């Protein structure tokens, strides 16, 4: 860790309001609904996730953390799904072979989606209880982004200045 990087203290479950817990849980659950709507081209769920994040990020750091973690973790899954759809169509249209590489990719995408689903459900349950849950990579990335104390964050209040003479 670098010397200057400090982090905000994490809130404990009893310090988080019910509303925040529900909003944090909603970040994960909403993805399931929008993934269904976003098929076959998973663009809609990405848009929904981004909107959800921007609506909720100012509520509290706890909500922001979960909304952002959910958003970030679904980017790669969505892109992989989209690639799988596009690749499959390409094969169908150009009458190429369904290669082993393609089959392997498809299985990988299925595995990725399963992992994403399972971890999202766990995270939703934890969030509802006011706890944190860190995904591999995405958890740390989100924590670093949300809870790091930034220099500019120190003086949030802008001071009104008279016009320069």
């Amino acid at each position, binding site marked *: *860790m*670098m010397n200057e*990087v400090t982090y905000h203290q994490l809130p404990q479950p009893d310090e988080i309001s019910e509303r925040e817990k529900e909003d944090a849980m909603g970040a994960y659950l909403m993805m399931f609904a929008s993934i269904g709507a976003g098929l076959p081209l998973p663009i809609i769920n990405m848009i929904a996730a981004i909107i959800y994040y921007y609506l909720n990020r100012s509520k509290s750091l706890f909500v922001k953390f979960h909304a952002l973690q959910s958003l970030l973790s679904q980017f790669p899954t969505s892109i992989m799904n989209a690639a799988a759809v596009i690749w499959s169509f390409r094969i169908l249209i150009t*009458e190429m*072979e369904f290669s*082993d*590489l393609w*089959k*392997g*990719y498809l*299985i*990988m995408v299925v*595995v*990725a989606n399963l992992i994403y689903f399972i971890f999202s459900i766990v995270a939703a349950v934890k969030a509802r209880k006011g706890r944190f849950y860190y995904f*591999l*990579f995405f958890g*740390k*990335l989100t924590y*670093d982004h949300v809870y790091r104390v930034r220099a500019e964050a120190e003086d949030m209040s802008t001071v009104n200045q008279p016009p320069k003479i």
Partner: protein
Amino acid sequence: MRASIFRDLLILLVIFGVIWAAFTYFPIFPDEKVLEIPVDKEEKLGELIMEELMADMEETNTPALDSAIYVISETLLENIGLTDYEYDIKVVNNEDVNAITLPGGNILIFSGLIEFVESAEELSAVVAHEIGHVELRHVVKKLIKELGLTILLSVFTGNDPVLIHEIGKIASSTVFDRRQEKKADEYALELLTKSGINPRIMASFFRRLSKEYGDIHESLEFLSTHPNNNSRIKNALQYKLPEDFEEKKLPVDWERVKASLNTHDNS
């Protein structure tokens, strides 16, 4: 923190990379249902179907034609490498310009096709294409797709003549899917090259065929699911010949073969 984030990213990439690679190299869905019908069973099936079909068809034999077919099949089969099949190539009396591939390496060439092709090399191209269907096991795959494995296997237990008739119909309908046609074309181009026959002959054959009959013609079933005749012509023309390719002429007097067929018809 940053370093640890990157380490985690690396872990994720490695995990999914390994999953992808693992399932690529060890496919868990073997599409080889066709393996359930080993070649000896396929040959048995072929025999049954041949018996059924030959009841309605008449084999055409003339000494010139027989020797031409012999030369062609020997030339091709010599270069096919290891094969599990015993090929049986017959000419049957039928006006259609067609050739059909039955299970177990049985290939039927219609006399209409013999009339249509202009040289023994052209006929070799067609035969090589049909051999491709056999070697790539398209016939069995088609039957499994149409009938299902269970029904197909039931042929071997009970000799149900109706069922064999049905299978014969499907097998001789010669409808392969485009992918299979393309594969068989590729196989034929390679086999022709190995046999010292210029693979470009396929292009000229296809061109004449579509000129004569248009792109789609009912009697040309074996081309109707084609990946479009033009693209087949293109593929044949684009096929790269090896540098040491030496074209050999088949020792067949094609005009005599055709002539013998006509006198045979008239007699």
